[in-house]
């Protein structure tokens, strides 16, 4: 049990081979994680406050109070399950898409997954930053080498945005480290040591700003979202899947795990602005999504819109909203990931993503079409699918906090309906613009998409396991406020 988290990461670090090996590795990890969850399910959900399911601490650079400290609670567990699930899929969808330099490709893919898992489990801020950066470089390669037409530009933009904000976070981490060290005499980067550090109000705001900036770039929040459409559009399908499904979630995770518990006072000051920014994101993302002609870009902007809900929920500071945020993280990972995969399938067949060149594809590829319909509906928040639960929880939570903002944010749902249906309608219905010669989904693709469908329906009808798993964590986080 103790070695669990470490074993996943250690197992990854030297992983370097073709797709079979990577598939097997990820599947083994995934099965291991599921097995672990089932075996300990009762313990996870019944715990009163945040219990740490796995806790591993080794000295690393003792001179500076840095340790190799990994720990996992319900929230980490959910995110790790999501990571590994999408990890398996990302290997599967790269099966035929990636034709050259396979070894290096899968090497990068697994490194990203390792970095993400590291981010979700690191309990030492230095280590956290370490993983935070580790996941960038392979992602940069993934976009830069296997991406589409403007890949170099997109890769640079992605890297520089995240690197710049990451460095500011790093400065904030150092600031936190010293404020704490001066006050208590204990210089440590450990999460648990740093919790409860007292700040001058301005210092707290500045330091939280450093953290928030990094997390908001990742999330992304509207003025800082500029890298996202390019990165998503230019990345290979698996890259988009990981970006949308996992990398964005590290931002939200960071806010829940670090920004709010460390700086409760500053977070309260910032809360109304956070909610407003979130709402702006919802509306703005939806509006831009509607006006895109590139399918991938369109889906990318829907991410911006959905992440606005996350931001809104995070700064509502109540249990329901937080539950919604976690649900949104999971379901958005699934549904948007699925949309990217489907767009990837279309692109593999048609070699274009231009929405205007499609139309009436339903008759040719009904399976692909019906899958697209499911996820378009999920994306607009149809009851019965996971996203509905998430958005509903976020909105009802934030309603308690601020009625007006919530009312405006709800408009986002309507806009969501418009853009989601537009994808489906323009691509699969209407007159045929051009005669495409397409084959329908094959077995591998059906397995990939089918598993996503099952999960999203399951989350729509019975979200209780997720809610129970993260409940102790959320109560714990709210305790700091």
């Amino acid at each position, binding site marked *: 049990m103790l070695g669990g988290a470490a074993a996943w990461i250690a197992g990854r670090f030297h992983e370097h081979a073709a797709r079979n090996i990577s598939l097997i590795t990820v599947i083994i990890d995934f099965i291991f994680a599921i097995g672990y969850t089932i075996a300990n399910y009762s313990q996870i959900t019944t715990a009163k406050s945040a219990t740490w399911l796995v806790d591993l601490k080794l*000295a*690393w*650079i*003792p*001179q*500076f109070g840095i340790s190799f400290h990994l720990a996992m609670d319900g929230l980490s567990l959910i995110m790790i399950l999501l990571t590994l699930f999408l990890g398996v899929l990302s290997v599967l969808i790269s099966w035929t898409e990636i034709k050259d330099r396979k070894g290096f490709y899968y090497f990068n893919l697994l490194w990203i997954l390792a970095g993400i898992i590291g981010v979700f489990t690191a309990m030492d801020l*230095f280590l956290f*930053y*370490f993983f935070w*950066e*580790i996941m960038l*470089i392979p992602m*940069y*390669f993934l976009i*830069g*080498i296997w991406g589409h037409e403007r890949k*170099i530009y997109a*890769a*640079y933009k992605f*890297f*520089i945005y995240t*690197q*710049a904000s990451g*460095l*500011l976070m*790093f*400065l904030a981490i*150092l*600031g936190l*480290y*010293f404020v704490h060290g001066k006050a208590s005499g204990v210089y440590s980067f450990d999460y648990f040591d740093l919790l409860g550090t007292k700040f001058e109000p301005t210092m707290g705001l500045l330091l939280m700003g450093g953290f928030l900036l990094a997390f908001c770039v990742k999330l992304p929040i509207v003025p800082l979202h500029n890298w996202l459409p390019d990165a998503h559009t230019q990345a290979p399908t698996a890259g988009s899947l990981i970006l949308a499904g996992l990398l964005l979630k590290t931002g939200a995770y960071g806010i829940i795990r670090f920004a709010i518990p460390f700086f409760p006072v500053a977070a309260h000051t910032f809360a109304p602005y956070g909610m407003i920014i979130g709402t702006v994101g919802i509306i703005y993302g939806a509006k831009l999504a509607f006006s895109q002609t590139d399918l991938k870009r369109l889906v990318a902007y829907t991410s911006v819109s959905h992440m606005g809900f996350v931001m809104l929920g995070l700064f509502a500071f109540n249990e329901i909203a937080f539950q919604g945020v976690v649900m949104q993280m999971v379901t958005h990972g699934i549904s948007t990931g699925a949309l990217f995969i489907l767009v990837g399938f279309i692109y593999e067949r048609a070699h274009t993503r231009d929405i205007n060149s499609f139309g009436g594809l339903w008759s040719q590829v009904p399976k692909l079409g019906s899958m697209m319909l499911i996820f378009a509906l999920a994306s607009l928040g149809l009851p019965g699918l996971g996203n509905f639960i998430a958005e509903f929880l976020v909105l009802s939570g934030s309603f308690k906090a601020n009625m007006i903002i919530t009312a405006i944010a709800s408009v986002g749902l309507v806009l969501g309906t418009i853009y989601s249906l537009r994808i489906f309608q323009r691509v699969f219905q209407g007159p045929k613009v051009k005669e495409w010669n397409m084959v329908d989904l094959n077995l591998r693709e059906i397995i990939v998409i089918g598993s996503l469908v099952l999960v999203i329906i399951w989350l729509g009808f019975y979200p209780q396991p997720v809610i129970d798993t993260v409940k102790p964590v959320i109560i714990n986080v709210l305790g700091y406020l």
Partner: protein
Amino acid sequence: MNKLITTQELFQLMPYILMLAGPVILLVFIAIKRNHIFSWIFTMATFAAVLFSVISNYNQSSLEISLLTIDKFSLLYTGLFAVVGFLITLFAHDYLEKTSDHKEEFYLLLVFATLGSSLMVASNNFVSLFLSLEVLSVSLYSLIAYLRRQEQAIEAGLKYLILAAMSSAVLLFGIALVYFETGSLSYLGIAAKMDSTGFTPYLIAGLAMIIAGAGFKLSVVPFHWWTADVYQGSNSLVTSFIATVSKGGMVGAMIRMFTIIHVFNNESIVLVLTIIAAASMFIGNILALQQNNLKRMLAYSSIAHLGYIMIAFISFGNGGTDAATFYLMAYFATTLGAFGVISMLTTSDGEAENISFYKGLYWRKPVLAAFISLVMFSLAGIPLTSGFVGKFFVATAGVKADLWVLLFFLAVNSVIGVYYYLRVIVMMFSNKDNSEETIICSKGLNAGMLAIVFVAVMILYLGIYPSGVMGMIQNAVLH
């Protein structure tokens, strides 16, 4: 001071004596019969012997004689320089076979220059500082112009000669002013005098001139003008020597000087140093952005890196000296790696210095390309590499000393830096479209390969598990 040197002291001075004796013996051999392989092996043996004597002396109590202080700090730097010298020698054999018609003297000068640098760190007196600085500089003049058939090398050598002589003059004048004011040339004597008089105008002027002279060697803005031309013009091994040992010697000497003479109590000097650091970071990085020549790019980036080291330097007494030393080590490893690869890829036609030369290198020489990527990541300060940990230590020292503005600049500059370092990597991984030129590698590549593997291991070791080395540095560095 009239006593004779005891055996014990002789033993402690052994690293320096070896560095002096090695080239002299080699000189005799060259006079009798030239043999490249022999000189090569002999030089490596010299460096190895130096390293060995450093290690065996390391735990001795420190030795203080009138011109030199042999303590852990000087030995640490000397050992470091010996390792760098050894690695440069490893690269040198193939490189000289390819490019030069007279090979043996290169090694003499290399060892002499290393000696100069090592002595600079050990100096506790302006006399010995200046003498060892000249040992270093004079060796460098000839090393830079070593490939005498190339116009660029001659130009670079001449440029360096004129500017270095100029800076030595400034340094000397500064020393004279300090002497005029305090009546002493030893650091301790000056410090003692300063305790009673404080900072008099002459003293400040003198110190400022010393800083200017040192700044030239460190190539920080505004004393940086020679850097790019000299880096580009001299052969890559000498360039790597200038970038590492020569700058390292000056950093070490400054650390020793300023630990004894507390210049950081004076606000105007701190302000000047702060401006130098900020300007070095920005100007270095911005100029590096525009280069298409890898050597020039590295030259400007080295200016920026020295700016980062200056941050650690300014946060003296807050772990800044540890951080500077660690950063120096990290920077040594990466710089050596970068120039080593350039020297390996160089053919007799010319240096492998144009960035477009590296286009698609990954698909031709994956190992070398992976290595260059590692070096670039380290220069950019990406985790898992020594550069990241170095930057972390520098930032830690800076935060302790409340240098928030400089740290913000550091962050901004790191991002600028990432851009041009990545450019090299992107080049290497991009498709080989029209580059038919094949890279010819000589048979003896293995020696260089060995050095590269060593450097790569060092970069990763310092990047992943720095606490061992850091412990050693904290133990050795003066506080």
